[in-house]
């Protein structure tokens, strides 16, 4: 019934201000208004990047939301923190415990200088076996990308096209970290980070916060005539270390999360208008299309090169620019996807509006697939 979103990028604002801005926007967006003291529970999705407040950080949300006294807690599943926080809020409402929940995602990433920033970028992968071999997330996704290209005889152009498409979408999103288009040759010639992934295959390090207000569907019309419904949620998990999984080129957690969400929403894939998927690296968007069941194995590359996933294509993917262009403030990303669904499904997304959007699938991945959450939203 309400959603808010700060600019994503390198921001002067501190974490408290980011939370306050997103919450105030979300509250203000409720058509007939909401009393903050009616909110039964607060959820804060954040990794706690930089260590500005490692423990008990959810109390900061209560303070900045103007709701001190309300139960609050933090949800941490690395990059999937936001998706899992939405799911927890939905479960909390479904259980009958609360009628209204506020879910906020936050990360303040650019305060920390190197090498402290790289410390925090490396805390969510497998520490014991992958990190000791010299891998961070870019390296793990580099292994996955190399395997994908070799297994399906695909060239790096398919990866580059993901970046080109998402930058084109980000250029229409005033909140995006990057609002400029890039060319395929820019991506292909960018400095190598973890071959075959170059700099332009990677999402940026961004500051930002996003917030959504969820209400029990039976009372939604007290707040607005055009609520966006969460029809189903799903989640899954997998081995933390990629080396312990039978396959590199599929995320079992995503597959399970999608099946559960679609089943609980009683929705078939052909009735999904657009996708918000977790494209922390370009290869991740290709995996997502296949894991979520919108492309056969190895077919996401061709689908992307054919333009199917562009905003004006048959199945728009990441109309807001995705993590790649919009930015990836870790805890905020999953909530940002819900914000985009709120705008798109109410036809309020401006120049990046997906025509006729009625139903969305949101897909949020923790690390290199150790956790994943999916939500299905619609206009009812």
């Amino acid at each position, binding site marked *: 019934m309400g959603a808010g979103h700060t600019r994503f990028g390198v921001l002067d604002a501190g974490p408290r201000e980011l939370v306050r801005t997103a919450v105030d926007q979300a509250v203000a967006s409720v058509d007939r208004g909401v009393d903050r003291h009616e909110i039964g529970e607060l959820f804060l999705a954040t990794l706690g990047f930089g260590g500005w407040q490692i423990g008990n950080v959810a109390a900061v949300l209560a303070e900045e939301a103007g709701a001190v006294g309300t139960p609050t807690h933090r949800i941490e599943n690395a990059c999937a923190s936001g998706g899992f926080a939405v799911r927890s809020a939905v479960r909390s409402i479904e259980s009958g415990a609360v009628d209204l929940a506020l879910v906020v995602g936050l990360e303040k990433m650019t305060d920390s200088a190197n*090498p*402290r920033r*790289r*410390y925090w970028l*490396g*805390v969510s992968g497998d*520490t*014991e*076996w*992958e*990190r*000791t*071999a*010299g*891998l*961070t997330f*870019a*390296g793990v996704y*580099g*292994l*996955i*990308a*190399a*395997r994908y290209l*070799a297994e399906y005889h695909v060239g790096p152009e398919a990866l580059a096209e993901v970046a080109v498409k998402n930058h084109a979408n980000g250029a229409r999103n005033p909140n995006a970290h990057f609002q400029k288009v890039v060319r395929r040759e820019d991506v292909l010639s960018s*400095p*190598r*980070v*973890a*071959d*075959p*992934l170059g700099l332009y295959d990677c999402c940026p390090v961004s500051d930002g916060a996003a917030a959504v207000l969820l209400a029990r569907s039976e009372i939604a019309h007290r707040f607005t005539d055009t609520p966006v419904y969460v029809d189903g949620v799903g989640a899954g998990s997998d*081995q933390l*270390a*990629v*080396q*312990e999984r*039978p396959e*590199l080129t599929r995320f079992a957690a995503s597959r399970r999360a999608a099946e559960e969400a679609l089943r609980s929403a009683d929705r078939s894939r052909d009735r999904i208008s657009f996708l918000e998927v977790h494209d922390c690296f370009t290869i991740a968007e290709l995996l997502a299309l296949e894991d979520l069941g919108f492309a056969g194995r190895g077919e996401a590359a061709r689908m992307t090169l054919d333009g199917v996933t562009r905003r004006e294509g048959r199945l728009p993917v990441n109309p807001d620019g995705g993590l790649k262009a919009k930015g990836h403030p870790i805890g905020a990303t999953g909530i940002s996807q819900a914000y985009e669904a709120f705008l798109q499904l109410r036809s309020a997304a401006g120049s990046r509006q997906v025509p006729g959007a009625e139903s969305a699938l949101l897909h949020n991945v923790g690390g290199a697939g150790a956790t994943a959450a999916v939500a299905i939203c619609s206009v009812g």
Partner: protein
Amino acid sequence: MGHLARAAAYLAAWSSDGRRAPGPDEDLFTILATALERANDGRGDLARPVEIEVDAPIPESMDWAFGAIVGSPATIVHVALGPDSFATALRRAEEGEEGDRIALVASWSADPPDSASLARSRGGAGTGAAAFLFQPGPGRKVSAEPVRSGSEGSSLGTAFELYQRTSGLSGVSWVGDWKADPGQGRPGDPARLARYRDRPISVVSEGAYVPRPRYRDSLPSRWRFAAERCPDCSKVTFPSRGSCRSCGNLEGLVPILLPRDGLEVIATTVIGPGGQPTEFDPQVAEWGPYEVLLVELAPGARATLQLTDAEPGSVRIGDRVDTRLRRLYPMEGEWRYARKAVPRTEM
């Protein structure tokens, strides 16, 4: 009284013809470990205790690490370093009454030996390691024969002579090559190499890290590729964790060792500058980008390994690689070690 069952060598920088200098991630411990694990492979039953006679200037504080290399209850005896110290080590190993014994020797020299010292020592100069496994039973006595003249009393020279002399003996398996691995190694400025390798280990890396007790617990899998086979579903779990990854069974898991060499490469990536965890910063600063491989140890068992002794980008999916124990980085005041991939060498 034991007999010589296996002779193993590992030579990082044997000859002066410039074929190979020890890599930046090698040190006295890694070459000792490589020779030791090759000799240890001949023991069969690892439940039996082993005594290791060590002739190398390595501190007793590393004794626990030799035990981790062999995977058996191990007693480490340091022979006094001196002109005939390896002859002493051999005699102790050969004349022991019971159990397995390994005489282990290594010499470390930052510079390749010149041809004069190679000639004087009959090849026993420079950097290298050897290990000789003695097991109970009769056999020709090898330690009594004089090992000396011409070798200038160099322990490595003594080992070299013994290795050559035992080559025709029946019942002795020979492992390794008494020459440098050919064609490997990254050319490097010796001064930079020394600066990297010999920097103080007080450097504590910043990053998510493996605390010392967890590191030591992990060594059977990290150093020896120890895994567990489930008696119920027959699947292999690597690294070992005390439970079957496939079916969750906790009972009767069978410890096994997975192959260390000839491993198929499943995936590979080259980590560019800035893409590395912070504890690898000094390595990247001195040696540039590195390649990381995902290799298959056995069906269902994979390991993530850094590539060494080769240019990054030189190994591809489908290639086969060997592995060696190498230095990782300093942590908590000591060097950490792990297996790394090296280009395949047929032995």
